[in-house]
């Protein structure tokens, strides 16, 4: 009797898992395998694919735009992630401290996160407009010459970063708030009794105990930033003069505008390798923290 139940049990389990598995296979694993294959071919969507071995990679090596795009992506990650982590932590601390209007504050900071990317980018692009945008007007008020942010080769990327940070930290603040609320106040009270001041409490209690959140925010933001496409595409289309073009945008252009499918995929693969490192880290950390929980 027990064996029969176990068998049916197993069958049922497979059944439960089957739809997910089938869809995963078809829409993730198979395209993934294909994506690796495509790298070795030249194909322009009209004709038949032609095997060219490592041809796409040799092309990549000498392609100035590829290297520039790769750098722009990395530059974006470097500029974006630290402010997101630090600012969301600090603002969460602020909201969590002994002040009033907590609900209003939490909603206010989260609100931008609920907006669609297009709304955020179109609005900010207008704010950045040097001829009639609000930022320009405020600069004029202080006697400064308005900067043409999105057309300035130096400022364009930082401007896009600022918009991204504004858009994203809402969610990270919520994560930090959740983490902060889990720290028992007794820890702080004990520390205060021991004579620790505000800063010491933050450095020795708060920050270490939020390790899981730090890591979660850090890794998810790095992975998301590496894939950056929308904000740049909408605000500068990779300009000015290609100075903000990210790797994903270059992949999109080569693949969907000039139809160099194999080449585009080869570059996407490079991006994937970079992300793989972080995705693997994220996975290990998630499993580790999950294991912790079950003990």
């Amino acid at each position: 009797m027990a064996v029969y139940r176990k068998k049916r049990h197993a069958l049922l389990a497979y059944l439960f898992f089957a739809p997910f598995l089938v869809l995963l296979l078809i829409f993730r694993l198979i395209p993934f395998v294909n994506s690796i294959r495509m790298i070795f071919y030249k194909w322009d969507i009209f004709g038949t694919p032609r095997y060219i071995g490592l041809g796409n990679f040799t092309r990549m090596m000498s392609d100035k735009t590829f290297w520039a795009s790769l750098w722009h992506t990395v530059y974006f990650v470097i500029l974006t992630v630290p402010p997101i982590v630090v600012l969301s932590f600090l603002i969460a601390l602020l909201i969590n401290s002994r002040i009033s209007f907590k609900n209003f504050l939490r909603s206010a900071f989260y609100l931008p996160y609920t907006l669609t990317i297009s709304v955020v980018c179109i609005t900010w692009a207008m704010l950045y407009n040097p001829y009639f945008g609000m930022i320009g007007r405020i600069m004029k008020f202080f006697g400064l010459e308005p900067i043409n942010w999105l057309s300035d080769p130096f400022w364009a990327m930082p401007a896009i970063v600022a918009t991204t940070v504004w858009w994203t930290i809402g969610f990270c603040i919520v994560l930090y708030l959740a983490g902060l609320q889990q720290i028992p106040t007794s820890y702080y009270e004990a520390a205060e009794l021991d004579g620790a001041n505000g800063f010491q409490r933050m450095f020795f209690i708060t920050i270490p105990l939020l390790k899981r959140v730090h890591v979660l925010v850090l890794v998810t933001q790095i992975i998301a930033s590496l894939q950056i496409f929308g904000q740049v595409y909408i605000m500068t289309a990779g300009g000015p003069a290609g100075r903000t073009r990210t790797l994903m945008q270059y992949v999109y252009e080569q693949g969907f505008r000039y139809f160099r499918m194999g080449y585009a995929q080869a570059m996407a693969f490079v991006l994937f390798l970079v992300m793989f490192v972080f995705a693997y880290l994220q996975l290990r950390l998630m499993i580790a923290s999950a294991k912790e929980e079950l003990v």
Partner: protein
Amino acid sequence: MKFKRYLLTIFAVVLALVYLIPLIWMFLASFQSEKDILASKWIPSQWFAANYKIILQRAKLATWFVNSLISATGATVGILLVCIPAAYAVSRMEFPGRKILYLLSLTGFMIPGQAIAIPLYLLVRRFGLVNNLLGIIIPALPSSMAVFILSQFMKAIPLDYEEAARLDGANELDVMLKVILPMSLPAVVTVTVLHFTWIWNDFFWPLIVMTSDKMYTLPVGLVALAASDVNIRYGPIMAANVLASLPVIVVYIFMQRYLTRGVVLSLR
């Protein structure tokens, strides 16, 4: 002490208001005529509701909104239908190969959507799902994130509840639907909100998959609007932005209580 509290509160509130300035401006600008916008005014010299009329008449805003709604809702519901049983199986059932299937389900984390966008597009095209909302919904269904969050939560539910139900004669399906699922509500809410937001805000994939402007989702449509129509300038574009944002803001205000709770609980 109380003084410090007042000071911090004022600082925090001012900070929040400054933080919201872009949103406030967006709202005000949607009521301004082009002259006002070009003069960088804050308050419109007269409240120009015509922008809203223009945008509603000229742009397919309602269509795009419906497209986004259908695809985000359809995908979210589909994800729950597909991933809840999978998570349940992998977290609360014993069967040969469970560990392998669990690891397999996590591979989705390693495969970022944009790395496979091109072959995925070609595949979707072969299925005839290009320019179709199903082309957004179906590929979104196998979500490793959903399975992970759900299974993590389900694993932590004590066996007692399940055993009690089984003693009462419940079968596997009953246990899943009537015992485990209700207790996993915070995780379900988190998964729902996360995925709904992701799919609603997705820009890259709908950009590739949709070919006619009738099928655009809201983000893609808004950008197309801002980029191409020569007659629709700044005021109406801002009106479009406001209209596009209102529903989500409203939903958030309702859901926010659940969201924080859900996040807190799934962080544990």
